[in-house]
């Protein structure tokens, strides 16, 4: 698995790209594509569309568990560092406090938990989404540039088991797509 590029499909084409003008058309189209049993497909929207995850039938994200794990790791490291320094590595009486004065360790424990959790959220999101990925077949399509502006797209990959160049195109056209185009793989 190359880190910065997408896996290449077996055929000459990446798949079909359908362009929609309205959010509600895209939303219903996503419901139909899901009902038709496609699995290797995606919707592309300039902003997150409310409820589209459900319409596409996506499973809930694993990211919260990554963040929880990272946050607890950070907090444990922070607390451990302070205990190790003040009880073992460099025991020193300061203001008559005991070596193991845990209430004073709370702020840094908390801060490191937040730091690791935040790093886990951002870099965990990158890892799940396989970003950065600076090259992708969809970037071959010129109208796809509007996916970050004001248009909505559905892409169905050619190596979806249900993919059929004619039938899939007909399905997308029947869902109110403004235009359906074939996207090359290279």
């Amino acid at each position, binding site marked *: 698995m190359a880190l910065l590029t997408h896996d290449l499909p077996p055929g000459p084409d990446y798949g079909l790209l359908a362009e929609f003008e309205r959010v509600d058309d895209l939303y219903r189209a996503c419901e139909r594509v899901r009902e038709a049993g496609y699995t290797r497909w995606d919707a592309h929207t300039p902003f*997150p569309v409310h409820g589209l995850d459900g319409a596409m039938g996506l499973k809930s994200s694993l990211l919260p568990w990554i963040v929880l794990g990272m946050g607890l790791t950070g907090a444990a490291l922070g607390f451990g560092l302070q205990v190790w320094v003040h009880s073992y590595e460099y025991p020193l009486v300061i203001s008559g406090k005991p070596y193991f004065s845990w209430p004073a360790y709370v702020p840094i424990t908390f801060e490191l938990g937040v730091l690791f959790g935040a790093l886990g959220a*951002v870099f965990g*999101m990158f890892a799940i989404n396989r970003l950065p990925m600076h090259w992708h077949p969809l970037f071959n399509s010129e109208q796809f540039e509007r996916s970050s502006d004001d248009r909505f797209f559905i892409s169905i990959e050619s190596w979806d088991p249900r993919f059929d160049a004619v039938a899939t195109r007909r399905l997308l056209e029947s869902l109110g797509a403004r235009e359906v185009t074939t996207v090359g793989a290279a």
Partner: protein
Amino acid sequence: MTRTHTDEFENPVDRRPALILDKPEFRSITDAVVAPLDAPTPIGWWFVFLPALCLLGLLGIAVSWLFWEGIGVWGLNIPVGWAWDITNFVFWVGIGHAGTLISAILFLFRQRWRTSINRSAEAMTIFAVMCALIFPGIHVGRVWLAYWLAPVPNQMGTWPNFRSPLLWDVFAVSIYGTVSVLFWYMGLIPDLATMRDRAKSKIRRLVYGIFALGWRSSNRHWQHYEVAYLILAGLATPLVLSVHSIVSMDFAVSQLPGWHTTIFPPYFVAGAIFSGFAMVLTLMVICRTAFRLENIITLRTFDYMSKIMLVTGSMVGYAYAMEFFIAWYSGNPYEMFAFTNRALGPYAWAYWTMISCNVLSPQIFWFKRARTSIPILFVASIVVNIGMWFERFVIIVTSLHRGFLPSTWGYFRPTIWDVSCLLGSFGLFFTMFCLFVRFVPMVATAEVKAILPQADPHHAPRPERTAASTLRPEPVGGGAH
């Protein structure tokens, strides 16, 4: 609400007035935000950028002279061992709090008007934290030993004292800076992709493309992205409250009358939000006009912001009063002296400047006419920031200058190098902000588009859908879904 013209376009989803005016299309939002970045550099930008760059140069000179000559070039000396430098530090950290408040706390409270200002408020936070971090860095005297603050092994075999609020501060502020950058950059990715896709020249396409990380607006990505955003907001909210609480503990944990008070953490956090909102308001009043974003950054946004300033300003006023009450109620003569001296002693001029700027001036925001008047907002926001700078000066200097022994009493006067450092930090702040508005979309377009009425897939239900939903019986005790 005739003044703001916001009622003319009602959002049909929740029957609330539209947040973005003039019935925008998705594309018109992109155009409005990106057009100033595509256009040649406006002459007015240079009129801000060049003076800011000169002030940044002044900071370079002031800091170099400080390093060369030592801390003696500043006016601080025993008994006033902390003065102008830490005042600047607390001032800038405080300003930084508004960015996270707007981007995280208002996000959790579903305040959708925040989308027009959150990007620039987050950028402002980062630049303010950069300014803040300078001061504790340079005031340690031997700057080349500043790494002793970090928990790394050194040649003496010593370690920092983790029980000290000063070290908590190092962690809190640097982690706050890091998390703010992460939050800001993650929010930027979709807009950087927009910049990449619209870029005309190859260089721009390449540079924005590299930073956009190959974002392709995929909903499978948005799903995790939104979760990450929500989690970051959830993490940043307690973080931002902890940061200024910890800054306040630098003072509150010490045994000094005037500093040793339990009200400090909430009082500092309220003051931080107050000053940060004032700074966002100052910047937004300028940018809104300069980049013609009147329909996105609406008077309604300013109306809400000034209400928050009224609340936090009054909380700060309450804290000032409560400090005096507790000083009297404690029956402690040193405590009572510290506060009488603050209001009536040699620094009374600073104290009453603070009261008039922070407590009296925001009271004008009781009036809607003031909350929606650009000149009043602009002047009041600057007045508030002057007041908030004086608040930190009053807390730090008046508590120190007259200690327990009258033989050690003194009076702090700043030197030209103190003043140069403060002006220079404004140079750094405005230089960074100028670069930001020139190269980065200053409004989060993806977020603004998402609050437009037509962004909701159900805002104009088809007839068959409506019919189906009316046939369905209403759930008992509605609103459970």
